[in-house]
């Protein structure tokens, strides 16, 4: 198990009568770049919340870097090495861009020198082409710039597994290109990435492996080309013929 970064074993989540996630099992080993797709309501966000500690599974276990994390609070999961972004960007509005970067920096490395963390933050912001906005309030940033800021904050955490929830939504192609470069670079640095997106072109282009969720269950797990032709996946997206 030492090579496995993230391991989900029959993880389920039930809200009342609704089975949002249904016995999902898979593992992620670095440096994998995994796409996670599924129709609306398939359970992608719930599964992300379960992995990141925002929700507690009804059943099942989750291990991160050899440590059991299911039921642990989100901050603990983050410190254990799992970073995530949100579908709707959650920049800390009345804080500057640099402060947004320093929050994960100081949370992750409380004993580090502030100047070192600031230097690292500037470096990351430069990589994301938003270093000119360092001292600005993040509420004043454009939607695309906020997406980049969220990605930058993740790097301050130095996570081993990253979950990106809809990183391309509503972002101009020029900034999308920056996000593409970010994903490639982070992946080359040896981190595992789970990419959730409705942008199929991006998912198929970037991912080495695809997970497909439908009604909370994992219906496919494999290479993108194999998943594309999987009958269960086609049915999930296109529905089945009523005559069948």
């Amino acid at each position, binding site marked *: 198990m030492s090579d496995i970064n993230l391991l989900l074993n029959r993880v389920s989540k039930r809200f009342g009568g609704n089975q949002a996630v249904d016995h999902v099992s898979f593992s992620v080993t670095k440096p994998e770049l995994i796409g996670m797709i599924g129709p609306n309501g398939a359970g992608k966000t719930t599964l992300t919340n379960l992995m*990141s*500690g*925002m929700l507690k599974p009804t059943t099942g276990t989750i291990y991160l870097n050899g440590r059991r994390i299911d039921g642990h*609070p*989100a*901050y*603990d999961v*983050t*410190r254990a090495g799992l*970073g*995530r972004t*949100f579908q709707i960007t*959650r*920049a*800390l*509005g*009345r*804080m500057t861009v640099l*402060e947004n970067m*320093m*929050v*994960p920096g*100081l*949370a*992750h490395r*409380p004993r580090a020198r502030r100047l070192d963390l600031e230097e690292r933050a500037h470096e990351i912001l430069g990589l994301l082409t938003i270093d*000119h*906005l360092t*001292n*600005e*309030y993040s509420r*004043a*940033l*454009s*939607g*695309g*710039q906020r997406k980049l800021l969220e990605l930058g*904050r993740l790097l301050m*955490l130095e996570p081993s597994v990253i979950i990106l929830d809809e990183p391309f*939504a*509503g*972002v*101009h*192609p*020029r*900034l999308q290109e920056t996000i593409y470069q970010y994903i490639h670079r982070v992946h080359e640095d040896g981190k595992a990435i789970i990419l959730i997106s409705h942008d199929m072109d991006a998912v198929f282009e970037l991912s080495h492996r695809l997970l497909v969720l439908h009604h909370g269950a994992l219906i496919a797990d494999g290479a993108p080309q194999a998943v594309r032709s999987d009958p269960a996946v086609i049915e999930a997206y296109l529905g089945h013929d009523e005559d069948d």
Partner: protein
Amino acid sequence: MAILNRIESAIDESIGRRRLGYALLGLIILFFLWFPNDASQSNYAKTVFISGFFYAIMSSSWALLAGIAGQFSFGHMAFMGIGAYVAGLVARDGIVFASLGIGITAESFSAIGTIIIGTLIAGLVGLVIGWLLLRLRSAYLALFTIAFSELFRIMMLTEYDYTGGSNGLSLRPLLQIADIDAARQVEYYLMFALLIVCLLAMYWVANSPIGLFLRAMREDEDAASALGVNVVRYKILVFVFTSMIVGLAGAIFYSDVGSERIIPEQLEVLQMSLIIAYAVIGGMESLIGAAAGAFISRYLLEAMREVVISLPLGLTLPDGSDAFVWETGAWRFAVFGVVMVFTLRYMRNGLLYPIITWFSGRDLAMQETVAKRDDDDDLDEQAGASDE
């Protein structure tokens, strides 16, 4: 306008705004140090200032709790009351652990000892309340703390045998100076020193990594948590810290420094509303702003008790006088209410916010932000349109 801009540029190029701000702050502190030495000032004026310092501690600590950490609590006066009542009860009855057969007599405690115990108990209750509030946000948090505050007030009011009911409870006098003038002077400096110490402590917290985490928590608890911030720890910590500050302030103020006894009336929701109003008027995201807002508001409310109105155009009253005194009574609070409405409608960051941001230079940064974001905003709008 051009003259103002030139003055602004001259300041930026010479001393700098921040330094000018510190210089101004130094002058204000010097004024407060000099004030009680001015022979023309009455003891009443000093009492008003002492009360102003007390409310400045209350409002600035509430600003830390609500404005910086985002915990909109109505329990602040109750924590102050806990500090004061516990100090008073210990001074009168001592401490008895009946089950262990241990007791410490009241005489064993000095006034400072009772204040320390009052402060610690306020912090302990803050710990419990902070823990109970963990899952509550916004309106629910406010309602919970109102309920807690009222519960405490009613307990103090009805448990007459222990608390003195509506007559209140006397604490052990902290200072025992026979000369009234000298006593007032020492009380003045004591309360002013307490305000400075509390502000420095809060300023240190607000500007440390803890302050950064508190602000992150205020902005978005889930996002802060996902960034590795232990929201539970910092939520409880800020409750304990601010509860201890107001517990300490209450225990000292009612130890015959600002007032000779604590009464349940002081714990009413109206009093808490005033604390919030002072902070809002001054600027609830700024410790200095909230403290200044409280002090200035208290002073003006006191000054407006009696307003002398001179008659214009040589008019006189039947008794021959050309002026009369208007005893404003509750009307002064109505004026205060109008200021509050104005602040919330037009200057939500507080009346002092423009001054504070000017001295800090943040207004310049904000103007630049708007300009810098425009390009990418346009791009995003185009992207949004094409997505649809």
